[in-house]
């Protein structure tokens, strides 16, 4: 079954931090927001995206809950910061909007580059750039 390549991109980013840095791209490790533990995979946005999708904290605390991630990203010296996770795909729209607005207000405009997969593999592969 064909796939879209998100894991390949994540592996590439994890293994080529220096190369990316020379081109002004950062692939940072983010502070943990969830109590859930994730496998030590190349995907640097697993915890963050899981928090957005599933953690009631985002609804309860709103933007405040995102502060540790935003503070980390604000310290990164790069023209592009990549945060990647398949969990972003399928996240509730209202929560994504909360994240978008919080980032925007913090001076971190964000976009979404999404490579769509073949129908037989079917599911989500998303990579977000900020």
């Amino acid at each position, binding site marked *: *079954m*064909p796939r879209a390549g998100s894991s390949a991109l994540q592996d*590439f980013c994890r293994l080529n931090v220096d190369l990316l840095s020379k081109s002004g791209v950062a692939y940072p490790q983010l502070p943990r927001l969830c109590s859930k533990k994730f496998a*030590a995979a190349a995907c640097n946005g697993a915890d963050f995206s899981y928090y957005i999708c599933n953690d009631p904290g985002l609804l309860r605390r709103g933007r405040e809950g995102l502060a540790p991630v935003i503070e980390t990203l604000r310290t990164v010296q790069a023209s592009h910061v990549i945060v990647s996770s398949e969990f972003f795909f399928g996240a509730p*729209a209202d929560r994504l909007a909360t994240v978008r607005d919080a980032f925007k207000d913090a001076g971190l405009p964000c976009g979404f*580059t999404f490579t769509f997969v*073949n*129908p*037989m593999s079917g599911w989500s592969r998303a990579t977000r750039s900020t």
Partner: protein
Amino acid sequence: MKSRDLTVDVNEYLLGTLPEMRVAGATGDLHDVFGREFELALYDRDQLKGHDICSDFFGRVGVELGPFENPSDVNASANAIEIEVLRHFNRLIEHGLWSRRNSRGFLRFAKKGRVEGPPIGRFVRQEVEEAVRRRADEEVAEIKARFFPDLGRPLFKRPATTDRLSLDDFNESKLLRAIVGSMLSVVHPGKQEAKAKTP
């Protein structure tokens, strides 16, 4: 599909995903939230910049990378024997005898041990494949109508149908050989290489 986490037969897994499939809806949500900052691209290996997903992606976000090497087998799909072994191992998770983070390690061992097998797609039953195609066609039609209305061709090439196999062919001895071979590749790497070179 995330084959590394399977605990059930691939057919059961696929049928279980159908009610949850909302590719068009989720894509629409992203577009609604991010607007012009959202870019949707069709995955077509022949059309990728440099025929490479990394070059293509960074080109899309406006970053020119210097020269780099990206092995063609990076993150290669697990074959059916590897997935079947993992499926059984994953059932040990609730007993605390295995964790999902072990699966990547196992696949590395399996690669060293040269565990070979057919792709898992050949084990999808015909009726399951047809059910997946029907459901996916609905999603794809919705996406085409919204995001690619002027494209004068189908969004995707339909994968060719291949000969079907049965997971019943995978008896315990075959799986056991895969497991033992993988572990031996770590403990006695030389023996595995010597064995592989034997005609």
